[in-house]
């Protein structure tokens, strides 16, 4: 099978020739070290089945997120983190310092208008480059990968503390902003599909270690209509990425019509075996290889053991894509990352 056939087979709920693999983001250090500075070469070296289409965001004219954007200037890649050295307020109202998120400025109805950015679809996605990459790699599957899902972005653009106060004091304001973000994201997703994306990988953080930010019941009530809108408008499968312990909200993914879920952080408490048992027939599971510790060291037997664990827990019956439990971040060890994907190809055969 080609990569494209393999991944589409998994998305259709059938069993492919082997477990495919992907990553949500790659730190520039890997792009430099493994791919001589080009993302395409890096993906090739790692042997990934999924190639990304990126939707660009900006902070005061500077493109966001080294790992999730096309052209971050080299001098902005020095933070060593996932983000490329942003300083200032971005187009969504998030405040950044040296590439780290510090809070948000959205407080009023006027702020909502100001910080729901113009779609700028062509500028964001660079259609000619995207189409040329798809044409050049007809055997690959393309995911529109963007970390601008509505819930996480609503929290971040208000700021954590104030979001939770407003959530209790003025739910109407939260819902209004949430829907603006939802509609915005849905249009980006629809345009991605129009460009040729096979799937949307929607980054939307809703949980942290051991729990979701808000109760699973509240989350379902609030988010199912929003996510349904995105899934419907996209018209192609949507895989939801969230950090943290998302097990209690996986029903939200199912009720929204999502195709799958990504990251499934083991250190946050996600038990892949249990999730496979409870949700494996309804969702494609993507991830769970610990990138907090296992991928940050060079004992390759530990890496192989981790890959084996994931395969044992989730490979059977299909609907599994191997991936790290967040991204290939700056702290990962290059040898561990290469070995993870190599070993997955070796033992992932059905």
């Amino acid at each position, binding site marked *: 099978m080609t990569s494209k056939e393999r991944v589409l087979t998994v998305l259709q709920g059938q069993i492919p020739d082997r477990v495919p693999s992907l990553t949500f983001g790659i730190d520039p250090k890997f792009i430099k070290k493994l791919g001589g500075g080009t993302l395409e070469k890096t993906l090739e070296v790692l042997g990934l089945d999924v190639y990304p289409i990126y939707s660009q965001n900006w902070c005061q004219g500077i493109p966001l997120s080294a790992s999730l954007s096309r052209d971050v200037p080299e001098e902005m890649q020095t933070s*060593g*983190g996932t983000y490329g050295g942003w300083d200032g307020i971005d187009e969504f109202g998030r405040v950044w*310092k*040296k590439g*780290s*998120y*510090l809070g948000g400025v959205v407080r009023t109805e006027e702020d909502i208008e100001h910080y729901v950015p113009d779609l700028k679809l062509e500028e964001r996605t660079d259609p000619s480059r995207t189409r040329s990459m798809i044409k050049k790699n007809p055997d690959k599957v393309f995911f529109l990968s963007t970390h601008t899902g509505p819930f996480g972005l609503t929290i971040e653009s208000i700021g*954590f*503390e104030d979001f*939770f*106060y407003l*959530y*209790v004091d003025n739910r109407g304001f939260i819902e209004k902003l949430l829907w603006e973000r939802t509609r915005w994201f849905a249009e980006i997703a629809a345009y991605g599909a129009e460009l040729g994306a096979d799937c949307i990988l929607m980054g939307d953080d809703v949980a*942290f*270690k*051991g*729990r*979701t*930010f*808000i*109760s699973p019941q*509240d989350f379902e009530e609030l988010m199912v209509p929003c996510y349904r809108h995105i899934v419907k408008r996209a018209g192609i499968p949507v895989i939801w990425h969230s*950090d943290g312990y998302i097990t*209690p909200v996986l029903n939200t993914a199912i009720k929204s019509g999502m195709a799958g879920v990504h990251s499934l952080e083991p*250190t*946050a408490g996600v038990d892949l075996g249990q999730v496979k048992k409870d949700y494996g027939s309804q969702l494609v599971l993507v991830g769970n290889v610990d*990138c*907090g*510790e296992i991928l*940050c060291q060079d004992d390759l037997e530990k890496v192989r053991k981790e890959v084996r664990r994931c395969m044992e827990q989730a490979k059977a019956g299909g609907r599994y894509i191997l991936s790290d439990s967040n991204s290939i*971040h*700056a*702290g990962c060890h290059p040898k561990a990352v290469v070995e993870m994907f190599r070993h997955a190809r070796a033992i992932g055969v059905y």
Partner: protein
Amino acid sequence: MGILEQLYQNIIKGKAPEAKICAQKALEENILPQEIISKGMNSAMEEVGLRFSRNEFFLPEMMVASRAMKAGMEILEPYIVGESIGHAGKIVLGTIEGDLHDVGKNLVAMMFKGAGFNVVDLGIDVSKEKFLESIQKESPQFVGISALITTVLPNVVEAVDYLKKSEVVGNCKILVGGAPVTPEFAKAAKADGYAPDAGSAIQVAKTLIAGQVQ
């Protein structure tokens, strides 16, 4: 329902204006501020911490409870003498050098304040030298080091080692926490305590205090 019970309930429900009124009424009923704090407020925040640990409360409930506690404290503060506000102990908190995230650390600060601790918050991007300087100045029972990103974990190890080697630290216990921090990491870093979340951090601190007393 007595006024302290009303105060307790209002804090748990996150009703700040009502908590403020209850604190005022309790003073008017000649209840000592220390008693109002311990029976009406700290106990409420302890309950909030427990419910958070049991996944009955989530961040919104925890945040508004803390806000209600703070509103009540504003009424009582003028009547509190000296250190009695931090009668449960003192903790110096900070996010480790290289890390600018503070949500987790702020939640821990709220819980410790709620449990009656005096909290010295050093903020974000805190160097090991700054932690030591603060221990010297504040003589806390605890130092809490927070980390959110994996890449700063070596800085946590270095800071714990640096603090442990200093005579100034004495009996001060070092607690570590944050998303990438595991019990195994805490043990390897030779920290004195680890808590998986803000709610259980208080229990860890209390257990360590009890251990010292024994």
